[in-house]
Structures are given as structure tokens and as C-alpha cells.
């Protein structure tokens, strides 16, 4: 028990340090040593990524524990399909993490909507539905932001005063153009 508490405290401290580092680096000209420390924390601190994955798994179990086994299985299949639809297999680590978060928030929203329907419009549950919707939209927003900024297949061109965004598989397009020549 003492060991577990110590490990939990260590994880919490690490998470706090990480959050402080993120805050410190978020300026127009961050100190290179801070950026390097942040990169190192991202690349080497596997505990952070594992913690997030564990938390998502825990949230799935907690959300579905009061449902019958058939519904649980059907929901897991739905989550799997959702994961495939969002391109989990070919996604980068950060996108995978955000896809998992989207799944969790989607599940939470649907469980709360189900409870709200069962409570026949209880105002407390109405607030919970609103909060779950906001959480889900935020998770989707984060995934969209990362894909928009870091997506390997999107190119921004400035032609004259107009900005043109080209999306798609640019590498495949280039190869096709070369083979046409």
C-alpha cells in the first residue's frame, strides 16, 4: 500500500512538473533548454503515455460496468469501428492518444444520455449531458487542431494574398505527377 501511494505521488509530481514545463515553454521565444527538456519529457517519459492509456481503459470499464454483457460487447465493437474510422492504425502517437480520448468522451456522453433518458428529464442529468457534450467537442477539437497543424499530408501555400490549403496524400500525388512526365 505504501509503495502504491509513493508511486502515485511520484506520478502526480511528474505530471505537475510536466504541466509547469509546458506553461513555461508556451511563449513566442521559449528558451531552447526548456524546449529540449519538454521534448525529452515527451519522448522518454513513457509513464505519461501509459498513464493516459490506463486512464482511458479505466474510464471504459467504469462507464460500462452496470450494463449487461451483450451491451458491453456491442459497445466495444462500436468503439473499435470508431477507432478504425479515425485512422488509429496509421496515426502518430499523439493522434492515437487523442483518438482514445475522443472514444472515451463519446462513450461517456452516450452513457450519460442513456441515464438522462431513464431519469425522464431530471435537471441534474441535463447539466451532466451538457458537460459531457462540451468534453466530447473539446476532445474532437484537440484532434482536429493537431491534425491541422502537424498532419503530414496537408500543405499550406500562399498564392498572392490568398491562402490555399492542399490536403491529401502529397507523396502519392508527387509520384503520380513524376510518372505522368
Amino acid at each position, binding site marked *: 500500500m505504501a509503495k502504491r501511494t509513493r508511486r502515485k505521488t511520484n506520478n502526480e509530481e511528474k*505530471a505537475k512538473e510536466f504541466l509547469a514545463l509546458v506553461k513555461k515553454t508556451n511563449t*513566442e521565444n521559449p528558451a531552447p533548454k526548456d524546449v529540449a527538456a519538454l521534448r525529452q519529457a*515527451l519522448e522518454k517519459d513513457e509513464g505519461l503515455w501509459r498513464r493516459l492509456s490506463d486512464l482511458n481503459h479505466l474510464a471504459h470499464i*467504469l462507464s460500462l460496468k452496470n450494463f449487461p454483457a451483450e451491451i458491453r460487447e456491442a459497445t466495444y465493437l462500436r468503439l473499435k469501428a470508431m477507432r478504425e474510422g479515425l485512422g488509429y492504425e496509421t496515426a502518430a502517437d499523439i493522434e492515437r*492518444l487523442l483518438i482514445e480520448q475522443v472514444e472515451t468522451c463519446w462513450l461517456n456522453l452516450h452513457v450519460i444520455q442513456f441515464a438522462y433518458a431513464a431519469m425522464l428529464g431530471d435537471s441534474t442529468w441535463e447539466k451532466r449531458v451538457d458537460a459531457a457534450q462540451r468534453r466530447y467537442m473539446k476532445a474532437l477539437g484537440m484532434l482536429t487542431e493537431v491534425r491541422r497543424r502537424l498532419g503530414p499530408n496537408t500543405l499550406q501555400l500562399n498564392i498572392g494574398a490568398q491562402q490555399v490549403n492542399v490536403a491529401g496524400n502529397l507523396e502519392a500525388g508527387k509520384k503520380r505527377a513524376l510518372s505522368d512526365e
Partner: protein
Amino acid sequence: MVEAMAAVDEARQRRLAAKREAQAETMHIRAVLDEIQTLAQAVMRATLLTAGYHTHQGQWRKKRHGKKDKKKNKQ
């Protein structure tokens, strides 16, 4: 009469206990979701920051072709 009242009281106690348990479960899930959101947001921010972005009035921006770059290009 006394037995009937005791049964009603017991049923009420059971209902309250179930409600308390449901509330505790809801709080636990909410705490887990809050932690997921905080950590995921921090990792997302860290990824964008290390890719050269920063936030300006809530928007992510990338510094491109600054004065230093222009000077370097001229040289």
C-alpha cells in the same frame, strides 16, 4: 403497523444508499475524465510547442520567416 413503518424506513435507507453509491461512481468517472483531459491537453500542447508553435490569444501560431531568417538569407 410498526413492522410496516420499519419496512418503509428500510426501503428508504436502501434507496439513499444506492443513490450515494451512484453519486460516488459518477464523481470517480468525472475525476478520471478530468485527469485524462488535463494530461492529454498538456501532451498536445507540448507536441505543438516542440514543433515550433506557440499560442497567441488562444490560437496556435508558428513563427515563420522572422527577421533573423531574413538576415540569414541576405547573407
